[in-house]
């Protein structure tokens, strides 16, 4: 079974530029998560999708971050314009289903390391 795929693995941009990250979850996984991991910290949830609907985006800085999951499969996370404090690793994770009694385990991708200069 293929794991969660993310691209690119690394990205360097200047502040005020835009950037987009792509995530392909494990086939059949209904729930998709984007986490931001700043150096020296644990990951923090940015947004959670159930199929193609948003379940939780309370910690997404909506003035500059946007995310979509068209057709309930792949997802894209965009930052526009980027700030220095956006430098972090962006992790995508997926789970089979968020319903209790089913598989709630989250499987993570390798992440994208973003450096904003």
């Amino acid at each position, binding site marked *: 079974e293929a794991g969660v795929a993310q691209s690119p693995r690394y990205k360097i941009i200047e502040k005020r530029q835009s950037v987009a990250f792509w995530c392909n979850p494990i086939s059949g996984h209904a729930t998709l998560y984007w986490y931001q991991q700043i150096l020296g910290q644990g990951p923090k949830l940015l947004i959670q999708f159930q199929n193609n609907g948003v379940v939780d985006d309370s910690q997404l800085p909506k003035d500059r971050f946007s995310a979509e999951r068209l057709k309930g499969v792949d997802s894209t996370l965009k930052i526009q314009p980027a700030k220095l404090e956006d430098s972090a690793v962006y992790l995508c994770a997926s789970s089979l289903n968020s319903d209790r009694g089913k598989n709630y*385990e989250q499987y993570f991708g390798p992440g994208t390391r973003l450096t904003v200069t």
Partner: protein
Amino acid sequence: AQTVTQSQPEMSVQEAETVTLSCTYDTSESDYYLFWYKQPPSRQMILVIRQEAYKQQNATENRFSVNFQKAAKSFSLKISDSQLGDAAMYFCAYMGFFFGNEKLTFGTGTRLTIIP
């Protein structure tokens, strides 16, 4: 809001010895899940072990076991017979039980070094 605290930024252990990583959490919920994730330099988060709060029995996975103290809101990870491949960042994480609260809340991590 739930919080997870890992008070040991760094730990080291001699190869083949046993080490315990500490984690405490705060929640008002009675049912939830707790996890330990391992993050090697490759950055991929790997699930080490999980514990359902409604189960009294401590979870065990080969050399990894937990000491879950629900009343004290404590969830420590014990690694027995430490191996060089165990070197990584270890994150304790909390997940709520109900729909809409499945996000993982992570601690700040403990960097584990294995001494040959």
